[in-house]
């Protein structure tokens, strides 16, 4: 065909030319979203976090459970290009560490040995891990030859905080993802029933939502997670915690779905679809769902940090995930008392990740909300 709307763009210039009259709602939303500067920052920050989580095994210099007895509660090790004499080294290095006892407190302390360099090498062999649970490998992106490297320091057992944080990112983000997906499904179903059928079903579901929302969330999580058997495996606890978070978190989504359905049900195009001979399911799936999908995405991005924070708070209080699972909350659990904080403040670094992730999601949610209705004038 040769009509202008059906020609296939051949040059890069043609491909890049915007055709708003032919743009679907997702394209229009993306164009609007891209204009939101903070949201794009959020997208980048989140992409980095997801990248770190996905490739946690290869990026971390060692497995998170490995203990380095030579460097207990060691502070973060900086990467240097210039040595103590001011000479430049093309290959970055860390200074060697030796342990000695503090003559006064008798605590083991690590001393920086600026004379010895441990150069950083890439794709070194270290502790073996299963790459995405598929195959065993022991390749790590980087490592220090002749010694060890702990970018974020170590905890009291000598475990690498950097590696643990990356693995925790994986667990925490996946809990958020699974929890939000579950909440999304429950919320869409309950909201859909309430909005489409109305009447008694609507009344019952709305009162249930109000009841759930009236309960203070923290005690509710605590009660539910305290009910988990102590002898459950960490994976079972992980699943149970996501389920608990989803069971409490679906209410907001259900409300959005219901209100959108109620509004859309009255739109002329819904009646037009009915008169066109569409069945109820076709009306919902083809005509209504695409219209409020964008609003649900906004709600999901806002629900995400809630669930993330909920998991972190629960684990921090010792009632969520527990060792040996790494999650941001579990890592922060170790940084609870003042003494650890005073001596090993780097244990708080996972908290920084929580802040970045929550902020990123909020920024994205903000941008998504602005872009959600590309047809608004």
């Amino acid at each position, binding site marked *: 065909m040769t*009509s*202008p*709307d*059906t020609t296939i763009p051949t040059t890069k210039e043609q491909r890049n030319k915007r055709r*708003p*009259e*032919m*743009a*679907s*709602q997702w394209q229009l939303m993306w164009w609007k979203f891209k204009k939101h500067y903070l949201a794009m920052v959020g997208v980048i920050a989140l992409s980095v976090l997801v990248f770190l989580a996905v490739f946690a095994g290869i990026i971390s210099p060692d497995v998170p459970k490995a203990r380095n007895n030579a460097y207990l509660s060691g502070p973060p090790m900086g990467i240097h290009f210039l040595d103590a004499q001011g000479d430049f080294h093309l290959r970055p290095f860390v200074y060697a560490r030796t342990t000695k006892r503090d003559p006064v407190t008798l605590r083991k302390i690590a001393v920086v040995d600026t004379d010895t360099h441990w150069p950083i090498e890439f794709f070194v062999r270290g502790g073996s891990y299963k790459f995405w649970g598929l195959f065993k490998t022991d390749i790590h992106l980087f490592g220090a030859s002749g010694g060890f490297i702990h970018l974020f320091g170590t905890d009291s057992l000598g475990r690498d905080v950097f590696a643990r944080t990356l693995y925790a990112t994986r667990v925490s983000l996946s809990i958020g993802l699974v929890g939000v997906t579950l909440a999304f499904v429950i919320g869409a179903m309950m909201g859909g029933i309430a909005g489409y059928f109305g009447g*008694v079903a609507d*009344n019952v579901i709305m009162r249930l939502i109000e009841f759930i929302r009236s309960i203070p969330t923290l005690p509710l999580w605590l009660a539910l997670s305290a009910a988990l058997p102590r002898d459950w495996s960490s994976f079972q606890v992980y699943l149970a915690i996501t389920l608990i978070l989803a069971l409490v978190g679906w209410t907001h989504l259900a409300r959005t779905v219901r209100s959108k359905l109620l509004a859309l049900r009255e*739109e*002329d*195009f819904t*009646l*037009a*679809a*009915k*008169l*066109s*001979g*569409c*069945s109820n399911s*076709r009306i919902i799936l083809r*005509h209504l769902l*695409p*219209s409020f999908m964008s609003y649900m995405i906004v709600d999901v991005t806002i629900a995400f940090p809630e669930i993330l924070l909920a998991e972190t708070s629960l684990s921090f209080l010792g009632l969520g995930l527990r060792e040996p699972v790494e999650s941001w909350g579990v890592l922060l659990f170790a940084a609870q008392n003042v003494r650890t904080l005073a001596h090993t403040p780097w244990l708080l670094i996972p908290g920084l990740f929580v802040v970045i992730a929550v902020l990123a999601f909020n920024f994205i949610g903000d941008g998504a909300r602005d872009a959600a209705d590309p*047809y608004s004038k």
Partner: protein
Amino acid sequence: MSVLLEISDIKVHFPVGKTGFFGRPAGYVRAVDGVSFTIEAGETLGLVGESGSGKTTLGRAILRAIEPTSGTIRFHKDGQDIDVTSLNNKQLRAMWRDMQMIFQDPYSSLNPRMTVRDVIGEPLLANKVAKGEELKQRVKQIATQCGLDVEHLSRYPHAFSGGQRQRIAIARALILHPEFIVCDEAVSALDVSIQAQILNLLKELQIDLSLTFLFIAHDLAAVAYVCDRVEVMYLGTIVEIAPTEGLYYTPRHPYTEALMSAIPEADPTKEMTPYLLTGERPSPANPPDGCRFNTRCRYATDLCRTDVPLLTPIASNHFVACHHAEILSLQGAMDHEEVALI
């Protein structure tokens, strides 16, 4: 001409207010309250009346887009006599292939998330009439007939102006070749110049596809332009039905007279003397006794306040629901020579 639709004693009552949590409704809004008329095949029947008189509700009730509370609708098609009010959902969906609707607001009647091709082709898909290449061809054909550029079919509705959108809506309503179309204020949301285009399009399509229209409007000039007969609604009831000329020149109901006197003149120097109705329109939840118009009628007598006037013939094809129709001499819309200009 043969009768296409027979509407008898249609009522649409909406429950309002609740006495308790699961309680019974406190009352009913009688949006349409016992309306009977017939629509002949191939004609355009106008339906006029002020806002809230139940025009749209009646139009939708005829298609059963709103369930009528009581009454019957009979649809005569190819010798068949179908009782629309007794159809089940599946039969109703099949019925809608013959009865369609064009909406007032072309901005809310088109799903902004579907391309024009999908919007127009949706009835074909939903009724499993055509798909793939055949669907594309049929969409193209009807779009051309409705004055749309086939090269624009891949676009989304947001790229179109109101008039073009209304053309898309008309194409969607026509793609299954229905017999009967309810035009629910189909031009009132458009600019006057565009209105004329759409009205002409509807007229052309009516001849080409032998359509029957129920033309709901409050613009009396537009109604005069397209309609063969006009019925006037007030507060859920029909007060007058007549051929367009008869209704405009020689209205027989005081409410019609008031409507006619309110038609704006195209001549700005001409002085307008509309006969203004006084008082509020009574609530359809609590209509007055007797003639529903008695609270605002300048000719009302005691009889009007107690007895409900019935729709009775007063001239050929001219029906009116007024106790005093025989004795009143009412003012028409305009002089004959002015009408000739339209």
